[in-house]
């Protein structure tokens, strides 16, 4: 599945090279920016649903990326996943800033809810809405945001293997919810 600019994933070797050069090379950072801007913006916009807010959070995400790369503080092997993680942090901070509530890592209900709301098929939508927020979140990252397993696991702060297990459980839960929907409708 292609992303906004053609290829849905950047070649890992190419990405590593660009990240290494971007510390002091504007053209390299520009290439990373051009590839990830529409993806990060879309990721943020789907959660906040407001253009100017999405622009601010996207700008803050790339500013953070620039500063981290420039100061050689970037240690993660997967730049894309790390960028999504920074964007996700920015979104959650934005949503929670007013209430200053305590929340646990990974509780980003808005993405799963947005996915359920955007799905057109009534059976699938109703089944998604029956799921626990954690299951919806995993499904949203994988299918709504179209993130790779590496990217999604970085966003969630877990290993790729753990993400695979969580995805499998979420799909199983969704299958069960769809069966329940069919039963209820009968």
């Amino acid at each position, binding site marked *: 599945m292609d992303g906004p600019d053609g290829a849905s994933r950047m070649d890992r070797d190419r990405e590593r090279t660009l990240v290494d050069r971007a510390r002091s090379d504007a053209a390299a950072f520009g290439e990373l*920016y051009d590839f990830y801007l529409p993806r990060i913006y879309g990721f943020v*916009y*789907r959660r906040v649903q407001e253009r100017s807010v999405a*622009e601010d959070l996207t700008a803050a995400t790339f500013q953070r990326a620039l*500063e981290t790369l420039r100061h050689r503080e970037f240690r993660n092997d997967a730049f894309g996943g790390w960028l999504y993680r920074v964007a996700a942090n920015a979104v959650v901070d934005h949503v929670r800033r007013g209430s200053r509530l305590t929340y*646990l890592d990974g509780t980003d209900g808005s993405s799963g809810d947005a996915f359920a709301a955007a*799905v057109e098929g009534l059976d699938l939508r109703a089944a998604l809405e029956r799921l626990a927020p954690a299951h919806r979140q995993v499904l949203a990252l994988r299918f709504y945001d179209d993130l790779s397993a590496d990217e999604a696991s970085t966003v969630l702060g877990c290993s790729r293997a753990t993400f695979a297990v969580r995805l499998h459980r979420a799909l199983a839960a*969704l299958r069960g919810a769809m069966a329940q929907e069919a039963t209820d409708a009968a």
Partner: protein
Amino acid sequence: MQPDRDLDRLLSAAGSRARLDRDAAPDRDFAASLRDSLLAQLPDGSHEPRVGWSLGTLFRLPRLVPLAAAAVLLLVSVAVGRDLYVALGDHPTPTPSPSPSLEATPTVEPSFSAEARPSVSFLPVVEPTAMPVPEPTVKPTPKPTPKPTPVPPPPMAVLSLAATGCPGGVVLDWSPYEGGGAFNHYLTLRNTSESIPKAYPPQGGAVDPGGTYSANISTTSAVDAEISASVTYYYRTMAFNADDGVIGASAITSAVASPVSSLGTLSVGTVAEGTKLAWTSFAGGDGCFTWYKLAYSESNPTPSYLGGDPYLAALGDPSTTSYVSPTGEALVSGHTYYIRVQVIRATDLGGFLVAQTDVATYTVP
């Protein structure tokens, strides 16, 4: 496993449809402005603009090739014609006058016009009309010089700006733009002397510190973490229209930051509900506090919220000194984690590290 694959396809199709929302694509002006702002902060900020006009570009454009070819042919034909005329005729060299070219003004005259020529009696076959006169093909039409319509400068609104020096950075808060101009974005410039002209690009030694660009008229705070402690920095926030014209500006305000504070040791232990973290509260004042972020990592020995590491919780009360992470929620039994509490001062345009505990290494029983 087949049902999972069917569900995969179903969900992928649903996701594709949901992503078709056109508003999920970034605005071109925003993308270009942000790109320029970011790349200008890198050491070799002399990046090439993505859309530029140069002579090479001009002549690579197919639609301009015929025009270029016609211009060359015209110049050659004029030059040959004039040389032929001079060679064949025993007459004085014509009075120099502007040579015909694409840059000719509307009043240009061929230098070998009939009026300028003497009579030619010994070569009757060479008539002036036989000369390759370029007139029929290129006859520039005089065009009146367009008079630029005077554009009045946009009205300048006054913004108020407060700069607060904190451990680790400076917080910038300004009043929203309320003038009558077409607001496009905010930007704050910085200098180490009290001189920041109301203009963009920055002049007089001022710089764009990065991270203060906002296209949201109601986003009125940002941070500057790219500074040295104990140095006085001066700031001016400006509102711009889409042409980078200044439509609002604050007075110049100064601030001095201090080094990042230490919260001392983080104690970690097991309680019935899970893993308990305890630390000393931050005493630096509300103006420099937004959250405690309880950053953790299995692989990074110096976990950092701003570095993108995950966190157990964000706590908005500066008097909080402990937190219990329920068993199984994030910290998994048998795994070893690096954990530390960080105080972050955050705005929608970014944040900076204010204070932090030492890193605790803990294996969940």
